[in-house]
C-alpha cells in the first residue's frame, strides 16, 4: 500500500500538483488504505480497478480535483525554426546588401590627377554629402568630379566640378550605374519590408515565437 501511495506521489509530482495538495491527498489515501488493510480489505476493495494502475488513478484524481498545473507549452525556440531563420536571414542580408550596394555606387572615389590651372567651380552646388576626399599629401587642389557614367573620369565629361585654389589634384566620384542602383534599391526595399513585416508579426500575431505567446490550453 505504501508503494501504491508512492507511485501516486510520483505521478502528482510529474503533473505539477502543488506539494501541499499532493501531501494532503497522499496522507488521506494512506490513512484510508491503512484502515482498509486493518479491516482485511484490499486496495482493490477501496479503489476498484484503480488499484491496478496507480499512475492513472493519481492522474485522474488530480485532474478531477482541478489541481493539475497546466502543462507549459512545448514551444520550440524560435531559432530552431528553419523557415523563420531563413526568412529573417534573407531580410537582413537583403537590407544590408542593398544598402551597401547603394552606398558603394555613390561613394567610390578614384584619385585622378587633373591637369591645367586650378579649377574653379564650374557648376553651382556642393559635393554630395557622402563625398570624402581621399588624403592627398601636400598642398593640393581638391576637386570633385561627378561623372555621369562609370569609368568616365575626364573633366570635360564631368557633370559637376568643384575646385579650390592650390596645386592641381583631384579625384572622381564615380556615378552610380543604373543597373547597380536599381538592384540595390530592390534589395534594400525588399529587405526592409521583410524586417518590418516580421516585426509586425512578432508584435501582433500570437505564436510560440511571438511577443504574444499563444494561450496555454
Amino acid at each position: 500500500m505504501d508503494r501504491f501511495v508512492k507511485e501516486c506521489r510520483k505521478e502528482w509530482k510529474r503533473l505539477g500538483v502543488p506539494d501541499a495538495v499532493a501531501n494532503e491527498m497522499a496522507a488521506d489515501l494512506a490513512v484510508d488504505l491503512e484502515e482498509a488493510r486493518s479491516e482485511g480489505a484490499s486496495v482493490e476493495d477501496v479503489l476498484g480497478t484503480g488499484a491496478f494502475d496507480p499512475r492513472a488513478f493519481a492522474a485522474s484524481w488530480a485532474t478531477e480535483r482541478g489541481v493539475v498545473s497546466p502543462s507549459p507549452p512545448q514551444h520550440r525556440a524560435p531559432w530552431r525554426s528553419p523557415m523563420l531563420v531563413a526568412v529573417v536571414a534573407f531580410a537582413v542580408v537583403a537590407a544590408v546588401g542593398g544598402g551597401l550596394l547603394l552606398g558603394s555606387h555613390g561613394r567610390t572615389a578614384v584619385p585622378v590627377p587633373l591637369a591645367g590651372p586650378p579649377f574653379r567651380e564650374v557648376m553651382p552646388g556642393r559635393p554630395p554629402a557622402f563625398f570624402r576626399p581621399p588624403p592627398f599629401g601636400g598642398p593640393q587642389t581638391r576637386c570633385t568630379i561627378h561623372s555621369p557614367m562609370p569609368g568616365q573620369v575626364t573633366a570635360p565629361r564631368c557633370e559637376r566640378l568643384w575646385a579650390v585654389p592650390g596645386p592641381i589634384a583631384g579625384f572622381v566620384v564615380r556615378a552610380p550605374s543604373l543597373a547597380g542602383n536599381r538592384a540595390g534599391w530592390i534589395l534594400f526595399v525588399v529587405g526592409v519590408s521583410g524586417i518590418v513585416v516580421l516585426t509586425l508579426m512578432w508584435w501582433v500575431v500570437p505564436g510560440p515565437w511571438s511577443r504574444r505567446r499563444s494561450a496555454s490550453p
Partner: protein
Amino acid sequence: MGTAQGRRSQLLRGVLDLCLLAVVEEEPAYGYEMTKRLKARGLQTVGEGSIYPLLGRLEREGLVDTYRAASDGGPPRKYYRMSREGRRELEAGASEWRAARDAIDAVLGLIQAEV
C-alpha cells in the same frame, strides 16, 4: 470482468456522484467511510477509478464542503459534507434517475413478462 458485473459498473458510474452526495447528505464522511457505506447498501463494487476522483470533482464543483477532524482516535481525516449546491444537484439528479429508472423498468418489465 463478467458482462453482468461490467454492466453494473457502467450503471453505477453514471450515478455514483449522486450516491456519494446521498451518503454525505445523511452524515459527513471521509473517503473510505463512504466506500463502506456504499458497500453496506449493496454497492460492493466502486468500479473503475474509485470514488476519489469523483470526490475531487464534487469538491471542485462546490457540491461538497470539506473539513478535517479526528476519526475515532485516529489521525485527522478529510470529511466531506453536503453543500447547498450539492443538495440541489442531488435533488435534480435523483429526480432524473427516477424518471430514467421508471422508463427502463417500463421497457425491461415487458420483456421480463414475456420471458
